[in-house]
């Protein structure tokens, strides 16, 4: 038995134990604040790390409490879209099938078929896209290799050509296989595998059409694998590929975000 515990057992606690404990706990915040402001060097680093972990835990707990407080039962009020009686009162999972009818109607009109959420597609000049790599001994002459400075997509079966013939070099660091795709009506974001890059209908010079390789930049359309979302086509089959439009600058951000075109 440790001696403090033994002592407490033998002689009891100080009369002001609880008061002191309360005061100590009350000063805890001040202490933390002082440490956070005044510690320097390695100790500051360690302290910050510890504090970071604590805060994460704290937020998680708060979130759990919030979720617990949410009322379980469905609301009495009418759902927004008419549904048959056998679907009433069910907490219908906001499924990806909420490819809302309005968007479907829009697709039916031919004019709107290729309208994309971000209409302004900026052209990319060759200077911006390529960096010249000079190879060989006669460096001044052999400037026929290009490094692509934009993110690219290469399919799973892609193999690089022999060095001698590799005109365009797609750097490994700028290749993407997955995109964070947001479903516009559901406001959910899921990471989906990219299937390919689509020729941009608004500007045939951009995208897959002009260059012999798929390019991932702001506004470009990509095709993503949505089989996990359970979207169904009009003929009753599970939709596999859907188009999405890139909404960020992957070359600056290091990630690829897109919005699903439904």
């Amino acid at each position, binding site marked *: 038995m440790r001696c403090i515990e033994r002592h407490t057992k033998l002689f009891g606690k100080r009369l002001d134990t609880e008061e002191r404990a309360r005061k100590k706990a009350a000063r805890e915040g001040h202490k933390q604040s002082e440490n956070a402001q005044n510690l320097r060097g390695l100790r500051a680093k360690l302290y910050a790390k510890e504090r970071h972990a604590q805060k994460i835990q704290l937020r998680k707990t708060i979130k759990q409490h919030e979720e617990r407080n949410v009322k379980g039962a469905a609301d009495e009020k*009418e759902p927004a*879209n*008419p*549904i*048959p*009686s*056998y679907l*009433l*009162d069910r907490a219908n999972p906001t499924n990806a*099938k909420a490819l809302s*009818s309005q968007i*479907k109607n829009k697709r*039916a009109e031919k004019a709107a078929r290729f309208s994309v959420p971000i209409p302004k597609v900026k052209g990319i000049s060759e200077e911006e896209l390529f960096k010249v790599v000079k190879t060989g001994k006669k460096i001044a002459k052999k400037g026929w290799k290009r490094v692509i400075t934009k993110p690219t997509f290469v399919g799973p079966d892609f193999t690089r050509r022999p060095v001698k013939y590799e005109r365009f070099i797609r750097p490994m660091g700028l290749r993407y296989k997955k995109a964070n795709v947001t479903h516009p009506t559901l406001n959910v974001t899921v990471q989906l595998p990219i299937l390919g890059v689509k020729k941009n209908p608004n500007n045939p010079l951009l995208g897959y059409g002009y260059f012999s390789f798929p390019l991932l930049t702001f506004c470009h359309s990509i095709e993503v694998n949505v089989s996990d979302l*359970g979207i*169904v*086509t*009009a*003929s*009753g*089959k*599970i939709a596999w590929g859907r188009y999405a439009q890139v909404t960020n600058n992957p070359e600056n951000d290091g990630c690829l975000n897109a919005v699903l075109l439904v």
Partner: protein
Amino acid sequence: MATVIPPPSKRQRREELERTQNQKDVAPLLADELGSFKARFIDSDGNQMTDVIEINFADASEKNVSVLLNTLLERDREDFTPYRFRIHVPGKDIIVDQYPTDLLGLLQKHGVLNPFETTITLSAEPQAVFRVQAVSRMAHRIPGHGQPILSCEFSPASAKLFATGSGDNTARIWDTETGTPKYTLKGHTGWVLGVSWSPDAEKLATCSMDKTVRIWDPETGKAVGAPFTGHAKWVLALAWEPYHLRREDGPRLASASKDGTVRIWMVNTGRTEHSLSGHKSSVTCVKWGGEGMIYTGSHDKTVRVWDAVKGTLVHTMTSHGHWINSLALSSDFQIKTGYFAHNEEVPATEEGKRAKAKGRFEAAAKINGKVAERLVSASDDFTMFLWDPTNNGNKHVARLLGHQNRVNDVKFSPSGEFIASVGWDNSTKIWNARDGKFLKSLRGHVAPVYQCSWSADSRLLVTGSKDCTLKVWNVRTGALAKDLPGHDDEVYAVSWSPDGKAVGSGGKDKAVRLWKN
């Protein structure tokens, strides 16, 4: 230039000549030494129909045996009923549902090595004399509703009139022959959740989110009387009184509501005759049986049986573990269609109509010579129960296990032979309606199946699903008869007309679609 096939070689020509000149020995093909067996025919109640008779294996095709049985029953050639046979393997507890092309082989496979001396029991199931052809094309796409279609039903009198209820607060009646809208029934102030034709096709009832029930005249498209008010919450389902139970003072109608009550209305006056309260939660479905019982299923996990005349509770069935989604009666089709039988004349007199409706109901509900209306309830607990409330009280006949998700809809076949159930596990399942035995699973939909509807001859089933398609199934073989894409969005309601000529469907894409063959 097209490729020319080279002329036959000399050897080929010689063989061809030999084949055409020589008479072939057909003795082994006739196979009269296959032998024979003794057949005993029983009906679906297990009673022997005729004397035991010896049949040649060579002649024992299903069609031949069917003709033979009709002859033995001394039927006129005009009145022949097609039969399907189920084979009871002798000495075993096996019943083969599908009649094989090679009966001898089947018996030998089941260990009956010498079937020539044994008596084989064949249970004969009468089939509908007429045959409904599977719908195969979209005949009409009729826009009109401004919101999703939530319910639909064909008129029992003919496939000419089709009623739909929609989320745009109207119900509409469509002329299916021309594919045009006929009447718009305006009046409700909430979504029309259910439409229901009276069994004599003279009235149409609609129930709505606005807590009222309205009655319409389908001939003029005008409302009949004032709306029936009294429910405190949404009205979810309707059931008309069967025609043969009608009293002198007019038809009655039962409506089930989310407020936990079922109200029985006098349609002529709009007076509430009874308010059946007892359910503790939303009543999702209501059926009016041919023996004057009202069956209700509710979110409080119980199925209740009420006496429609006295308005008292008869039975409470508490076996289910979750909400009840759907109820079906073995005589549903006959009650719905009243005195309208396929290709038969409508009786002229009131008594005649009543007798005909009663006769049709009893023929459908009778088992072993006594009326036993069976009820099946489908639930969110993935199971169904088969009940016989008349003879078995609140004890179930069978529990139908097999679905892997919530069961959304269940229907008896018009012949009372099968039960079809559809659910959220994307499958449709067929069950034997007598003992609740699982028969087959129809797979093909890729999303939850919402509704199903039988053809009048019980040979085909149409299912509507969330995956935007309708599918027509051949129930006998379990094969997909027709895949009908065409809807742009989820299919909420599907209905096969009582004469089998058309299928109507509606859903989230707002347009009514009519399918024909």
